[in-house]
């Protein structure tokens, strides 16, 4: 059985684009992960650690809950 994506949504891509078209590589450098990990987070294939989540939120100057949300199953 294929593993489903974690039920966590995020606005990383949207916030990146709002912040002067910040590139995935620039965000990756800012939070200390690889660009591949940023891509996986944006595509919902990976839920970042709490530390990375806080780092992402701090880069955009918002709270963690403004970046990540829990998607309730219907």
């Amino acid at each position: 059985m294929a593993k489903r994506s974690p039920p966590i949504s995020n606005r990383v891509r949207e916030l990146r684009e709002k912040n002067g078209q910040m590139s995935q590589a620039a965000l990756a450098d800012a939070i200390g992960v690889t660009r591949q990990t940023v891509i996986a987070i944006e595509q919902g294939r990976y839920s970042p650690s709490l530390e990375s989540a806080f780092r992402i939120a701090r880069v955009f100057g918002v709270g963690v809950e403004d970046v990540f949300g829990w998607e309730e199953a219907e």
Partner: protein
Amino acid sequence: MSPYLRTIALLSVGLLAVFGWHFATVLGFFGNAPETRFDFFIRLGVIMIGFLVVSGIAAAVTARHKENAIMPDDREAIIVLKAERLGGLALYAGLLIVLWFAFSPMTPMQIANAILAVVCASEFIKLLYGMAIMNRPL
């Protein structure tokens, strides 16, 4: 693939290629297989020292490419952990199979090569599984 994972994958492929050559000589496809314990350990030692040197060079080159590129990030650490877990299971299973056959008439050289083959198989499984889960949800 990140520089860290690419380095690990390339080193694994290189190691498997060298051991592939070793097993090709053991199976008599070409070259000479080690016949004594001394020959076997000399070959193994040369391979391991060569691997350590190449690993060091690869790590240095990767580190020059990017400062934090020789350390896995959160996601990569999970990929490596999952791959190593499966590789570990394969290693245990393979060693049990070798133990089973060790009671039948086998020469010490055959047993040594069988153990080496199990180690290589577990590395191969680790590599394949790591690449397979690279783009899957973790």
